[in-house]
Every structure is written in C-alpha cells, then in structure tokens.
C-alpha cells in the first residue's frame, strides 16, 4: 500500500508518520488525531506531498518549493488549488521547479490544460475537488442508515463512475484521482481509475471569498473574491458545533480554516478506507496530519 504524507516545509520533507502525528498543535483537533493514531501506526510514508489544494494565496514561492523538492528523498507530489488567471501564473512559475515524473494534483481544468500542453513531463492527478460527490456531513450519514436504494447508490458514487469520463482523463494523461472518505460510505468498485483517499480531513466547501481574510479589511470592503490577504487563516481555527441540527447529531463538529470547511473522518470511515486499501480498491492513502491549509514556509 502506498502512503503519501503532506509536509509544510523542507525540514519535514522525509518525516516518518510517527513524527507527523506530533505536528498538530490544535487543542481541538489533537484529541481526534490521537484517537485515530492506533489505526494509522503501521503506515509508513513512501511519497511526500506539498502545496495547497484550497487557496492560491497559500501556494509556496518557487524558492520554498525548490527547498522542499531538493530536501525530499521520496517521490514527490505538488498540490494545487483552483485558480484565477493570476493564480495560474503563479503555478506556471512553480512547475519548472519540479522534476520529470513528479505528480501534480490539479483542482482546476485550466491547470490540467496547462500541464498537458506545457509540462508533459509532469504527471497530472485529479484532485478531490474535482471528484464530484456530495459530502455534506450534516445529513449524508442518514442516507446510509436508511439503507440501500437508488439514492444511496448515487450518493456513494461519483463522477468517476463514468468510463467515458475516465477515458477522457486518460487522454489528458490522468491515471489517478484523489477522493475523500464519505460520511455515507464510498462505493469504490465502480470507479474506473486508480484512487487515492485523503485522510483524516474531508472537505465540505471552499470559496474564493475568505472569511479569515476579512480580518484585514474595513467592514464594507470585506469578503471580496480573491482579495489579497496576509494569511490571516494561519492565526485561528473556527469550530462550529451543529447545535441547530433538526436531527440527533447536534454534537457534530465542522472546522473553518481560512476559506474552507472540513469534517474529520470518524474511526469508522478510516477503518473502511484502510480495509479498501488492503483489498486493493484504493491504490494509495494521502495522510494530512494537519488541516490541509498550511502556509508552506521556507523554515526547516
């Protein structure tokens, strides 16, 4: 089983899982991670990932990427987000830093187009933002409890179920896709592509308008799409408790970091993903032991 570990700087480029499980400093998230640690302890990273899936303002500089790439002794994956034209220009400056055969996770069709046309030596991987499936943790688990039927079949599937679609992706050099562990369960049998599951954080939603960036603006100027920021997202975590649920899950938690909301995989979801990996339905696991909203600094 292949395992990718996301790192945040050159000093972490070859970290073991035991080291990575110590990185989380949040008092809210740490206990959740500690509870999962026994399930993950036998995994050992064989690949390193670095970058940003959810925000172009968190992309590393070419210098920071070069430092991580040079320090990294393992196969390497660069994470990239959805982007405006300015973000795409930033990525065009990052791709030449990579080596032939390095993977690039794309979350935007424009990024795939650029990779295919201008950087054919890099290996594109479809990111989880483009793996379309509903992940709404407020309610999706209830559909699983309701039992099998056409609705659950759709909710456990995704756009990767369509062979015409995966054949099109292959024409663009895409042979692998990343997915989330779904609250309603994943039907991996129908996906016609090599799959990597991200854990333990699933994304709920993300935006070009960033709540955290609003801290840097006067009231009437806040919440503009793609507004410049000072990475205020790195200064706080906002935890939501689903206290207004019409169901019994009023203790459920969601977390906002910057422009994106996440849910934490339950032990049941993680066990299902590990089982799928052992049985070969998943080719790889992508471990992100901190919320995948890292500032990607130079520091060792």
């Amino acid at each position, binding site marked *: 089983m292949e395992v990718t570990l996301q790192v945040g700087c050159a000093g972490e480029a070859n970290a073991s899982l035991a080291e990575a499980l110590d990185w989380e*400093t*949040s*008092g*809210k998230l740490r206990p959740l991670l500690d509870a999962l640690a026994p399930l993950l302890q036998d995994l050992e990273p064989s690949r390193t990932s670095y970058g940003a899936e959810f925000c172009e303002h968190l992309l590393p500089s070419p210098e920071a990427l070069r430092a991580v790439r040079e320090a990294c002794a393992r196969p390497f994956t660069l994470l990239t987000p959805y*982007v*405006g*034209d300015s973000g795409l220009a930033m990525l065009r400056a990052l791709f030449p830093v990579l080596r032939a055969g390095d993977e690039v996770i794309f979350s*935007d*069709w*424009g*990024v*795939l*187009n*650029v990779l295919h046309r201008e950087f054919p030596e890099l290996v594109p991987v479809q990111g989880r933002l483009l793996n379309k*499936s*509903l992940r*709404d943790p*407020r*309610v999706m688990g209830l*559909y699983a409890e309701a039992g099998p039927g*056409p*609705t659950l*079949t*759709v909710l456990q*599937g*995704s*756009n990767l*179920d*369509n*062979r*015409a*679609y995966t054949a*099109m992706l292959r024409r663009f050099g895409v042979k692998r896709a990343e997915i989330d562990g779904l609250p309603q369960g994943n039907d991996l049998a*129908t996906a016609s592509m090599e799959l990597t599951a991200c854990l333990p954080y699933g*994304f*709920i*939603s*993300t*935006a*070009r308008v960033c*709540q955290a960036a*609003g*801290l840097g603006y006067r*009231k*009437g*100027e*806040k*919440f*503009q*799409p*793609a507004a410049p920021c000072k990475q205020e997202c790195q*200064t*706080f975590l*906002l*935890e*939501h*408790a689903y206290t*207004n649920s*019409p169901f019994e899950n009023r203790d459920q938690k*969601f977390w906002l970091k910057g422009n994106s909301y996440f849910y934490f995989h339950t032990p049941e979801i993680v066990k299902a993903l590990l089982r799928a990996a052992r049985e070969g339905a998943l080719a790889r696991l992508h471990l992100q032991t901190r919320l995948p909203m890292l500032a990607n600094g130079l520091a060792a």
Partner: protein
Amino acid sequence: MKILAPIREIDELEMLHAAGAEELFCGFVPKDWMDRYQGAVWLNRRSTKGSSLETLGDMRALADAAHAKGLPIFVTFNAPYYTAEQTDLVMELAQRLSEECGVDAFIVSDVNLMLRLSEARLHAGTHVSSVAATLNLEAIRFLLNFGPSRVILPRSVTLAEIASIKKGVGNSCEIEVFMLNDGCAFEEGFCATTHHHSVGAFCTSLSGMQTDFEWHGRYFSVRRHAWLRRNLEDYREWVWYLNGNGCGATAKGLPYGPCGLCAVPDLLKSGVDSLKIVGREASPLKKLASVKMVADIVHRARHGVPKPVVIERAISLRKAPEHCHSGYMCYYKVDA
C-alpha cells in the same frame, strides 16, 4: 448583451417577454426522476419540487411559444455530477428535449455530460454552468474540447477577470455572467453540500451554529477575541445579503439580494454576451420586477448613458440605498 430570465411555466412567458427578457432558462424534472430519487438527489440545482417543468408536453409548448417570440430557451442539467446510471437517464431526456421539444441549449456542469452531449451531436447546444467553476481562461480552453457555445462564469469572477477572459476567448464562445438574485457564499462548483429542505443551505445553517475560536497566533487577548467575533458577525451579515437579504423579496414582491446592476456599463464594455437573472422558483411578480429592473439599466447602458448616471439609476431602482451602500449586496466591485 442579452437579458436571460428564469421561467417556470408558459403563463410567465408573455410578461417576461414584454418586460425585456431576450433569452429564457428553465428546469425540467420528470416524474420518473422524482419517483426514483425521492427528492434527495436533484436533477438540477433547484429542488425537484416547484421550480421545474415536469412533462415533455409542457416543455414543447413553452419552447414553441418562446420561439414564436424569438426567444431561445435553455434547460438546466447542472447537478455537480451524474453517476453512470443517471447519465444514461439524462442523455435520454436531452435527446427528447432537443429533438422533440426544440430546446436550444442545455446548461451543464458535469464534464462527463458535456463530453457525452458533444458526442451525441444534438441540435441543442451546450452552455457550461457556473457550477463547473470555470475561473480562468485556460479552463475555458479545456472545456472548449466539448463544444460549448457559451460559458457561464461563476459569481466569484471579478470584473477585471471577466474583461480579461472575454478578451481571451474572443469569438470562440459566448460569456454569460450573473446579474440579479441569489448569491453563494462558497464556490458553487466546489461546495459538496446539499440544499435539501431538511437541513437548508450549509452557508446559512452555519449562522445558527454554536462557534468557538482557537487562536493560533502569538498571543491571544480579549481584544483579539472581540476582533474575531466582529469579523464572524460581519461574515454572517454578508451571508444574509447573499441569501436574498434573508427573504429574497420585499413586502411588495420586489427582488431583494445580490445584484450586479451597477456593473452593467463595465460588462457591456467588456463584450459580455448575456446577463443572468437567477430564480426559476421565484414568484412571477419577482421575476417580472427583476427583468424590468435589468432591462431598464441595460437599455440606458446600450444608449450610452454615462456610467455614474447608470449607477445612480441602479441604486434608485433597488429602493434600498442603505443595502447598496453596505458593500455586501453587490456581485461585483465597481469603480465609479
């Protein structure tokens, strides 16, 4: 630059046309779909009940009547994805809506469906939905592989980006942008939640949840905590505006909520092809008022009325200057 209006049934056609609608879009959800998926899995981005046409006969009648007035009609197939089974169902529907009803285009967000439609070579064209999250010129170039005649840019694309994209695409496809009603706090194409009535939209549901900040900066203080709380309250206020100012229509039935009227002169100058009025499920009165409002501003812009005068007129039409001046009700930030 055309005015694209939502329509729910043929009875709304006459008034929308008279008010200035130049294109129409609607949803279509047959009973078979509702029976199979029981309201939990939507065929398009609106609830299966009350916002779409339901029979091919009604669709054909609407398309014929619209065409008689010179208006094209587009149908939304803009769910974020369809599984293999669903894709076959949607393709069968598309075939009939195109060849039997004369629908002019399908509004599509799932790249797989775009691919299948391009291979099927139907009379109806394809418009890329905003749910496809087409945020840059290269993304449009990629999607042109599947033959769309139009791309609808998401609400989060700024005026400067729209101008740059329109210049870049030239005549290879049309560009449509949002003009009135309904916002989205998140990037619509990257929001993996449901708007099912049992839980409501995630963005609005968040405002009712208990929250707790955890500070990761150098030091935390009562003042910093208040600063974070204020920002969260501002964000919730912004979401309130996106959600139609909490209700979607004033007491008199006029449209409330997100608006791009002040940007019409800039959008016209950029060469944008179509302005979308959102709200298939809205009341006929709100639809009518929305089209009238947009037509009034577009007419002035087309006739060269200076931008500051157009903006002044737009604000007066909304009849709520305090909301216009909040800065939270605008799709686009306009330099006056």
